[in-house]
């Protein structure tokens, strides 16, 4: 049933696009302005005089290539770990009945409510206990077990028909084989979704790396951006340039994986 869409809908849709996009575009264009133009009392949307100076400064003053690399490494590793353990957990919680299954799920879900800042001190104590402070592991491991990730996987895996699993069991397949040969291939869509979300979360983390990492060689992008704030002054150009560097890759990630984003968001939200 195709209905015709009239022009007011397009007009509204485009106006909303303007509302959502101009702040980002304004920041991106401003990152190509000169220092004086940025502090000018009559700002313009486009630079009067295009310059890459902010970018050159940012890469010269701080080791931004390294921070981008770190963010990438942390996000990819944590995502790989998250995919493995959350798919496993999702499988257990969706396809088995066992003592404590409900309680485990409820506990996991209830921690969605827990703001990280609230348990930061105890987490830091735990990190210290394991000698994990100031390591990549501190950024990669704790963040991998996200409640949202488990929930997403569980919701998806529930929809895989039990028959598939049962017949494999009858054929004598080991549980691990069932997991790798049946569950994983059938959950590809959900896995892709979880991977993209997890990448986005880790790429954007700020408070946690701030507390966990001291060694500047292990700094992530977000830390480096915040680091451009001094006691009294703020390196506007640097912040705008680095903010641009941090958000543009995400746009491409989204354009490429749009379908997975949509599915993932929809699934986490579909059912309580």
């Amino acid at each position: 049933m195709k209905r015709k869409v009239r022009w007011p809908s397009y007009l509204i849709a485009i106006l909303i696009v303007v509302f959502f996009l101009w702040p980002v575009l304004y920041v991106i264009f401003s990152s190509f302005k000169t220092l004086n133009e940025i502090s000018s009392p009559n700002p313009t949307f486009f630079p009067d005089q295009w310059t890459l100076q902010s970018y050159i400064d940012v890469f010269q003053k701080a080791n931004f290539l390294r921070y981008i690399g770190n963010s990438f490494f942390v996000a990819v590793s944590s995502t790989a770990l998250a995919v493995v353990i959350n798919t496993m957990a999702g499988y257990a919680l969706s396809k088995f009945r066992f003592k404590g299954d409900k309680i485990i799920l409820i506990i996991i879900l209830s921690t969605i409510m827990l703001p990280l800042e609230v348990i930061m001190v105890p987490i830091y104590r735990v990190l210290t206990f394991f000698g994990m402070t100031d390591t990549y592991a501190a950024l990669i491991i704790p963040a991998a077990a996200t409640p949202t990730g488990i929930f997403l996987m569980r919701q998806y895996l529930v929809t895989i028909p039990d028959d598939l699993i049962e017949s494999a069991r009858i054929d004598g397949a080991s549980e691990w084989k069932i997991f790798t040969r049946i569950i994983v291939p059938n959950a590809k869509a959900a896995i892709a979704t979880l991977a993209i979300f997890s990448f986005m979360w880790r790429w954007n983390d700020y408070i946690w790396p701030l507390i966990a990492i001291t060694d500047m060689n292990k700094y992530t992008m977000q830390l480096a951006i915040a680091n451009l704030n001094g006691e009294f002054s703020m390196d506007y150009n640097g912040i705008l340039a680095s903010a641009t560097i941090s958000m543009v890759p995400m746009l491409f990630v989204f354009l490429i994986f749009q379908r997975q984003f949509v599915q993932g968001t929809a699934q986490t939200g579909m059912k309580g």
Partner: protein
Amino acid sequence: MKKLVLLFSVLFALVALTGCGKGPMQLVWFSDGVEGTVMQGLLDQYEEETGVEIELVSVAYDSYEAKLATMISGGNAPALARVTEGHLTNYQDEVISLEGVYDTTKFANLFFNADGDVVSLPMDVTANGMFVNFDLLDAYEVDYPTGDDEVWTWDTFYTEMSKLDGDDVAAPGVIDHKGHRFMPLIYQAGVTVWDTPYTTTNLTSQAAVDATQRIMDYFEEGFFDIDGAYDTQNSASLFRGGQYGFHISGNWNVAGYQDLTFDWGVLPMPKDANRATILGGKSMAAFEGSGYEQEAKDFIAWMAQDAHHDAYCEGVPFLSPRYDAVIDFGDYEAQYSVFQDEISATASEYSEDWFNQILIVGMYPIINDWAQAVATNPDGKTALQLLQELETELIAAANAE
């Protein structure tokens, strides 16, 4: 199932691997400008001379306190850190005595612990002062002091600066959103906070009330732009825009203002009963429990040597806390001489009085809150009421525990 076991082992190996040995020797740092780069150069030189590697860790100032506290609390205290007076107060139990490490008679701006031991090496001093936009002042025919000994009073200052009124003027001026920018105006009125520390104060004297009232009026009228002081908390960037006649701030802006397109400079702050500025400054402290206590002392001793210390102050450049410092401020010479002049024109009773405020836990935040209340006055209180509250809180804080 084997793969599962494998996964576990990898997981634990990862945890275990990362956790062995003590970390590198660290110097935790925050920067407003190039001081991090200059310090890195000195650290490289130190490594070349002694073979000891010290890692520079830069942290955003906003997160600095949290970061330092977490590190110390987690048993990962850094060997060294760049600290403010506030940090020295908060971490007085954690910093190491530096008694005998360097010659303290050569330095100003020293900090001592309860036993009278020096606890940090002063690295740089800052002074409050006033930046002006000469282009704007000239355009509105503001008559400002030009000679070396000439200092204006707050009344003439107000009259002259009030000429700044036009489309290209946002406000006559801005003042930074910090208590230590406001306090000189009290000291300039000839008022020290403490009559007898820490029981009676001079805060409710007429001179103090008048000085406070003046600040309140200035904000009320928009003579001091509230926007710059409290809201944006970025008065330097406002001044850069060229729409303000003056900016009461610290000398660190000299470096940041070098690329301004208008003609600017530094003028002595107006006087009331007398001239006064507040000395501040960052120092370097060593921490207990880093595992590098002796190495940290060694580095501080090295850093305190004339050539190295001057190299730091000259590199940034900073006003130096070292009495005999020979520093070529280069392009900043004209401006920095005004700041040095402010420092020498300030009676020592005021500097000592200021130290009394910042060396007790919780005193500086109280003054900061007072400054904010004076600027914004959300509850419509009188100057006297605000000062009475300040007095009560300061006495309470000084006598707590």
